[in-house]
Structure formats: C-alpha cells, structure tokens
C-alpha cells in the first residue's frame, strides 16, 4: 500500500533538487520539474478562481436564492463581465471583451486615482521636507543625505532644461550646482541599487536555506537520490551534445 503523504514528500524533495540542478546545467529532469510546476500552478490558480466564484456567487444563488437576490444580486455584474472576457476567443464576438476590459481599467484607475495623489505624491514629498539643523548630529546628517539625494535623483532625470557649458566661457554657478546635484543623484542611485542587489542575494539565499530546511533535510535520501539522478542527466546530456 503506498503512503501518499510520504510519496508526496519524496516527490517534493526530488522536484526541488531538479529545479535547482539548472544552476549547474540544463537537463531533462529540470525540464520535467519546470513543466510539472507550471502545469500544477496554472491548474491550481484556475481551480481556486472557480472555487472563489462558486463560494461567492453560484452556491449562495442556488442554496439561498432569496437572501442572494436581496443582498448580493450585484455579484451578477462582475460575473457577466468576467464571462465577456472569454469572448476574446471568438472571431465574431471578440469585441465584447472590450467592454469587460474597459470597465476593469476604469474601475481600477478610478479607485487608484482617488488616493494616489495623497498616498504616492504628497506624502512622499512631505516626507523629504526635513529639518537640516538640529541637536542630534546623526539625524541631521541623515536628513541632509535624504534631501540631497532626493534632489540629486530628480536632477539626474531632468531631460528638458539643464545648464550647458559653452566653449571658452567660464561656467555659471547654476551649472556647478546642477553638476554637483547630478553626481549626488548618480552616486545616490548607485548606493540604492547596491542595497537592492544585496537584499536580492539575501532573499535568494533565504529561499535556499528554507527550502533545504523544509523540504530537503527531512527527506535526505530522496534528495540525495534526486541529486544523483540529476547529475546523471547532466552528464548524459553533455555526452549527447558531443
């Protein structure tokens, strides 16, 4: 009798090893794991979406029709719009999908625009208006860096008006201020990208550690067997290419 839970854990460990085997070389087991993952993920998403539709709309409409029509009748509208999206697959009625897309975009834009100016513009600008003199030297330094790098970053992305240096004429003070802010912006962004890259490494290493702890270590023999199989697949693949 197969214990499906154990089989699932072994399969899980093997698929993880085969996915990571791509770091060494593309191989048939990696491709198998990749296709299985994509298929399962797509199937799972569709199943969950249908389940959500069933829970929210279909089941209440059938089991408690009076309550549904009294309180939740408006769910019919997004359901109809969702069905219209499928019209894309018809050559004759594809235009119907445009209504669904138009409503979707309009609602999304309307909802976002309601608060975007405050949440993403005004609050971000006010957060950079900081006191540049104070009793705490570390805080003061941080505030200076924040203000200068923000101004520098904005200056770097000025594409329309900027002071130019004319041959034979000494540059104006505006030019030097512009150049200084430009370079502060460049170096500020480089530091930002560096921090982002370091965080990316941290996340990827974190994924590797947790995947090892959760899936590979508890099924050590399955992981080792999968790694040996992946090594054989890589060697056979390399030999076939030669």
């Amino acid at each position, binding site marked *: 009798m197969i214990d499906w839970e154990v089989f699932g854990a072994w399969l899980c460990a093997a698929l993880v090893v085969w996915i990571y085997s791509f770091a060494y070389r593309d191989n048939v087991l990696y491709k198998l794991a990749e296709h299985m993952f994509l298929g399962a993920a797509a199937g*799972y998403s569709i199943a969950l979406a249908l389940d*959500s539709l069933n829970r929210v709309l279909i*089941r209440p409409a059938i089991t408690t029709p009076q309550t549904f029509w009294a309180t*939740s009748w408006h769910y019919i509208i997004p359901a109809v719009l969702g069905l219209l999206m499928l019209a894309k697959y018809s050559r004759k009625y594809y235009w119907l999908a445009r209504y669904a897309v138009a409503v979707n975009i309009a609602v999304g834009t309307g909802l976002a625009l309601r608060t975007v100016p405050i*949440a993403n513009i005004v609050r971000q600008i006010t957060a950079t208006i900081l006191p540049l003199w104070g009793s705490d030297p570390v805080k003061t330094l941080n505030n200076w860096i924040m203000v200068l790098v923000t101004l520098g970053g904005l200056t770097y992305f000025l594409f329309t008006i900027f002071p130019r240096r004319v041959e034979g004429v000494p540059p104006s003070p505006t030019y030097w201020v512009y150049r200084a802010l430009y370079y502060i912006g460049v170096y500020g962004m480089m530091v930002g990208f560096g921090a982002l890259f370091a*965080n*990316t490494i941290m996340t990827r290493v*974190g994924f590797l550690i*947790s995947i090892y702890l*959760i899936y590979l270590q508890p099924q050590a023999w399955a992981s080792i067997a999968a790694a040996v199989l992946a090594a054989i697949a890589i060697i056979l693949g390399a030999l076939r290419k030669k």
Partner: protein
Amino acid sequence: MSSQISLGKVLESRELLYTLLLLAVILPILHPIGIPIEISARTRDVYNYIEQNLKPGCHVFVEVYYEVAARGELEPNLIALTKHLFDKGCKIVYSSLSAFGVVAFSLFKANAADLFANKEYGRDYVYFGYIAGGEAASASLAKSIKGTISVDNYGNRLEDLPLMKEVDKATDFDLVIIVSSGTDVFAYYVRQWHTPYGAPLLFVALSVIAPSVEPFVGAKQAIGMLVGQRAGAEYEVLVGRLGLGIASMDAQSTSHMLILAFIAVGNVVYWTKRLSSKRGGSR
C-alpha cells in the same frame, strides 16, 4: 600550462560558487555554530508598538499574500506575530488577495498548530480565503467586508461567525498587517486602507522588496516593517518561540560571508587584470 588553464577555468566557473554556497548553507545547519544575533531597532519598534497599543480583545487584520517559495522568509514573521497577537488577547482576521495565499495560510496554520490549539475558529480568528479583484477587492473590504464577501474560506456564512459581528470595515481594526512577497499589495493597502481610513499598517516584506516599499514607512504611512528571515529570527527571540527563522541564521551568516569573500576576490582579480592591461598598453 594546460593544468593552469583548467584550474583557472574551475575557479572562474559559476558551478564552484554554487557548490560552495550549497555547502555554506548545509554545513551550519547540520553543525550549528550559534552565531549570536542582535535585535535591530526596527524589529524592537514593531514589538513595542504591539505591546503598547494593542489591548486584549483588539482586532487585527492580516493579509497573507505570498507563495510557497517565499515561505522561509515570511512565515517565521507571521508565526511570531501571530503568537504575539494571541498572547496579547487579540482577535485575528486573515485574508488573501492572492490565490497562493490559501496554500501559504494552510501551511502556516499546520506549522503553528500549537498557537491555534486553544483558539476557537470564528470567535478568535477567521480566514476569508482567496478574494479575487486585487486593489478593487482591497478597497471594497476596507469599506465593508460583509458587503464584499458573504462566506469564509470554509463556506461558513460571515454573519454566523461571532468575530464578524465585531468587525466589518477598515476603521474597526487596530492594526493591519500585510505579509507579502510582492510589491503592489503594500500600495493597495496604503491607498485603500491607510489614506482614506487611517488604518495603521505593518509591513512584512521580503528583503528584496523592502527597498521598494521603504518610502511608505519613511513617510509614516506604515507603523513599521519587518524585513525577511532576519527580522523573523529577531521576532522569534522577542516572543520566545524559536523556529525556522532562528534555525536559518547561521546558514545566512556563513553564506553571506562566502558571497562577500567572492565579491572581494572578484574585485581584486578585476582590478589586477585592468591594471596589468593598462601597463601592457603603455609599453
């Protein structure tokens, strides 16, 4: 000569780095070193906020928005926060705007079974499951949960759950926690929960996502942010429930040291080659 070339090729190969990285991850897990970790000010601020502002019986909304791959980075934070909130006597409403959040929630609940053992579903906590609609769904939930969905993840009617008689809209919650592996969902909650209703937000983000949502924290649109596995480990120490986060710290430290060493060696090799080619050119 040929042996020199092959050695150089081996040293330059990415496979060597991957193998060493794998060893740097596996060896400290098999033989823990016990490198001490310090609680960062940011994690302590979040802990203190919950300690000082949340009273017994308070309500917390938790958005579970991550896929299984991000579990190791985010689940330690979610478990430690859940323990802290339950210890404070809070009632928690979980929800997912992502389809994969449902899997993440079931794995989280199985992994933190001890925390839910004495808690009653429907009275102490509720899980809505997957709610389709992205930002529109988020806005609708903020306005009225019962106006958005009528049943929870398990098919129970919301009006039959005692906890749902106490909360319905954004202003009913004392804290809103977003545990996400993506960037957009943080903006959804800032735009639809914080800006119109003033809901206090707490972000739990992947390390790679943190710089993108940092401006919201800097602008005080969130009360704080817990970043990645490291913050999870710190929070586990603070609440006294050690788990995956703290188990990962030795491996994190050794693998980061290895990567730092490779970056240093790479730079030395790069500058040596560049300087030697410049000298060759001038000759």
